[in-house]
């Protein structure tokens, strides 16, 4: 089953779903990639959705257009988006639920890399680190961890 493609022309409602933080120490192109991948993996952006043009996004975010185009070409290489001649960039179709699930896994894997680095620097054994992760996952989300850049909570 191929995931349903939305009606033509639907896109990122507002490029402001993406924010750039020049204080983070993460290169801007990386920040763009991470946020677009998160939007895709979390289902906010679906197969066939259009992305803003390089020009639009660079103007909206106030960043160098070369940076946006670098982010877009890496996303293309990673099969997150696809380019069709003369058309806007769109989110690539995934093979149904399984594909989306795969994207979620990939997203989580990537976002855990800094945590893994931290665990190594602290010198904690893997078992102990996993115990902590398990404990955190089973704890009720009273105080949600400040990891996922979900903006819907603000509403």
């Amino acid at each position, binding site marked *: 089953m191929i995931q349903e493609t939305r009606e033509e022309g639907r896109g990122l409602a507002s490029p402001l779903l993406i924010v750039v933080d020049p204080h983070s120490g993460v290169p801007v192109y*990386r920040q763009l990639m991470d946020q677009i991948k998160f939007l895709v993996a979390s289902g906010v952006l679906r197969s066939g959705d259009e992305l803003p043009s390089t020009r639009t996004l660079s103007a909206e975010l*106030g960043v160098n*257009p*070369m940076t946006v185009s670098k982010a877009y070409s890496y996303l293309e290489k990673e099969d997150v988006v696809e380019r069709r001649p003369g058309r806007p960039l769109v989110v690539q179709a995934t093979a149904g639920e399984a594909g989306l699930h795969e994207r979620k896994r990939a997203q989580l894997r990537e976002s855990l890399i800094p945590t893994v680095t931290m665990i190594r620097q602290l010198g904690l054994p893997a078992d102990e680190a996993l115990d902590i992760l398990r404990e955190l996952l089973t704890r009720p989300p009273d105080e949600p961890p400040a990891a996922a850049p979900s903006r819907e909570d603000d509403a």
Partner: protein
Amino acid sequence: MRTLAFTNVHRAYQRGRDVLRGVSCQLERGEVVGLLGRNGAGKTTLIRIAMGMLEAQRGEVRVLGWDPRREPLAVKRRVGYVSEEQILPEFLEVAEVIALHRQLFPDWDEALERDLRERFGIPLTSRIKTLSKGQARQVALLCAMSHRPELLLLDEPAGGLDPAARREFLETSIQLLNETGTTILFSSHYMTDVERLAGRVVMLHDGRVLIDSELDELQEKHALALVPHDAGITRARLLAVEGCLGVRERRDAWHAVFHLAPAVAHELLRAELGVAGARCQSVALEEMFIELAGGQA
């Protein structure tokens, strides 16, 4: 042909103070390069040499293939220049200043001039001396951009502007980049602007190029290591580690910048110096700048 090339440029002022002591760097067409350095590092001098306002005492400068001291007209027609200290004749009206520039440049683009004028919303009949700092800078920017220069040289263009005016300036630069792919060399103390606009950064220190790196690489392949004094490591031993660019002493720890990814730096410190408690992380450009500028011997 490179758009801008400095080769081994030297410049000293009177009383024997060297400002530039052999600076080399190149800008390819379409590149946007942020020129960083502390006050007195030589940024303004370097930009003035490119404009032909100052002469290099040794070394070579080429702007679009020309020597700016020998071909000043050819260079000035294709280059735009804005500086923080630029002074517009304050008794003239905005319209008169713009007209003056229009006459100087055969390639003046009136549509772009109008577009920028409307964007900035500057009244044409105002006298320069009645304008705010931000408005005056916008007039200077309009005059520097309306002939669609192949190279823009901006010396602290946002200096003294409020955040909204700075953002406006940044957006205008991005618009120009989008439309024409203009090559830009700009000096700035606003590291957040540099992060947004620059593809590459060149950092001057003590009259030399300390860093010349793609910005992405600077962030991904450089790390700040915090090495506690408890570890008993000396500054010299840290500096001797391969890839160490500078060490700064803080109250409880050494702050060392490495040209290595954080994880690699951490591993190297453990393997070579036996330091287990170092924290290695990537840092924003502003922190990197402070560490590097403050961490030189």
